[in-house]
């Protein structure tokens, strides 16, 4: 059961459709096409100042503004949630500048702009996932000079990244990178999947939906075409592993979704809930009940073991 889409918004005609001027949109569109043609490659684009600070998703917003049309249905999530300030602000921005319908339901959306999560439910061919990216260069913390990292990509010289993962193993006994976990796209470019948890990495592999990445401050657009191989970097003897946990979502009981820890009081009370709010709501609407769902009020809950 999906939540019905919100009603059609009102486009404020004092703005050009999707806020950006037409020449800016053409520039962004050309960059998007080259990004799709060279999977995982960071195509430079002339990122504009947007009416919100860098770090609020200006890259993702510009990509969305480049692709969105009046018939689209937009969903915006921030760390999986439709209800956070960032997600609501961006949704309102596009309602005001395009009048498109918005939704919280993953299944109803044609464009999903996301900060740091990939929805739990599988995406379809007729959907586009737009990621907000803070630092697009996976090698940046290993090599600060853009001239050098650009050449490393040109030469497919990714040894440094493997050294980094190796050092993780030497220090921690396992690859301790848990988010922004580097991937290799279509066997060529190493790419930063943005700070999504590595739990989400397998969802990028051979995904039926087009995935677009926009970094506003760093002025880069990159893409993963549909059905493209996305491999998380690892070693033969230390293969990529998904994190596991014992807890189930306190509200819907899901044991396979990515969970947020919510502190309930100052006495150690806490609960784990789905980070993907739409996924959780849909499961509850379908009758799934988590351990805490019936046990309100929450302050009576004891700490999870």
């Amino acid at each position, binding site marked *: 059961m999906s939540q019905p889409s919100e009603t059609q918004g009102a486009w404020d005609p004092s703005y*050009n*459709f*999707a806020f950006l001027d*037409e*020449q800016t*949109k*053409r*520039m962004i*569109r*050309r*960059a*998007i*096409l*080259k*990004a*799709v*043609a*060279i*999977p995982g*490659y960071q*195509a*430079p684009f002339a990122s504009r100042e947007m009416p919100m600070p860098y770090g609020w998703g200006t890259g993702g917003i510009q990509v969305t503004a*480049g*692709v*969105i*049309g*009046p018939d689209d249905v937009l969903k915006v999530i921030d760390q999986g949630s439709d209800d956070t300030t960032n997600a609501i602000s961006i949704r309102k921005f596009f309602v005001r500048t395009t009048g498109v319908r918005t939704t919280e339901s993953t299944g109803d959306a044609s464009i999903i702009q996301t900060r740091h999560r990939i929805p739990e439910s599988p995406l379809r*061919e007729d959907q586009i996932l737009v990621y907000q990216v803070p630092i697009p260069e996976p090698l940046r913390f290993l090599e600060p000079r853009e001239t050098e990292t*650009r*050449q490393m*990509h*040109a*030469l497919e010289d990714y040894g440094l990244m493997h050294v980094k993962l190796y050092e993780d193993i030497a220090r921690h006994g396992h690859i301790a990178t848990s988010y922004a976990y580097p991937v290799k796209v*279509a066997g*060529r*470019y190493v790419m930063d999947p943005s700070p999504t948890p590595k739990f989400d990495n397998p969802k990028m592999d*051979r995904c*039926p939906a*087009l995935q677009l990445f926009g970094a506003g401050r760093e002025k880069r657009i990159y893409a*993963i*075409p*549909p*059905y*493209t191989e996305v491999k998380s970097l690892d070693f033969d003897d230390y293969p990529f592993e998904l994190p596991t946990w014992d807890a189930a979502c306190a509200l819907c009981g899901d044991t396979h979704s990515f969970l947020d820890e919510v502190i309930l009081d100052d006495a150690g009370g806490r609960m784990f809930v789905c980070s993907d709010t739409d996924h959780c709501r849909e499961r509850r609407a379908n009758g799934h009940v988590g351990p805490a769902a019936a046990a309100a009020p929450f302050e009576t809950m004891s700490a999870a073991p």
Partner: protein
Amino acid sequence: MTPAPPPLEAVPIPAGFDDPTLDSQSVFRAVLEAFSRPGRVAFAALPSPPPGPLVSASAAVALTLFDLSTPVFIAPGIATAPVQEFLTFHTGCPLTEQADEAAFAIIDGADAGDLSRFAIGTPEYPDRSATVVIQVQALSADGSIRLRGPGVEHAHKLGVDGLHADFWLARERLGLLFPLGVDVILCAGSSLACLPRTTRAEV
């Protein structure tokens, strides 16, 4: 009293989009879909016919993606005065006769046996490469060509009429230089299909 100037020769430039903002958005989405799923045939057209030999799909692509920052090469057989006038009037794009300087090119399928004259980018910036619009006779979604690569789940079938016999070999040669390369938009009438540089073709 000065004599009246001779009447200007009235050669109207055909119209572009009815609504440049929304129409170019919808054409872009068709092109994006075609780029993302190589070989799938998409539709893009202008409301009124462009000056021949420009076909509707290539004119729609041009009005969506060309502007003053994109040098455009038009093959001699297509670069008639009305076509040049139409493109420069609607998009403001500079025209170039140097194929390797062009961000976009419009050529005929019969002339597409050699792709090496176009910019293929640099190892650091492979995106600084040409997008080549190739006008062909017909495109069909159920042809003998099998396409594989990013964007394709198993294989996409494509039929193309009116391509130079050497085109596929020329593409395959360029493919060895990946990530360098050129990206192709095949246009026939109001249909188009894309071949980004990653697409492998079995002819």
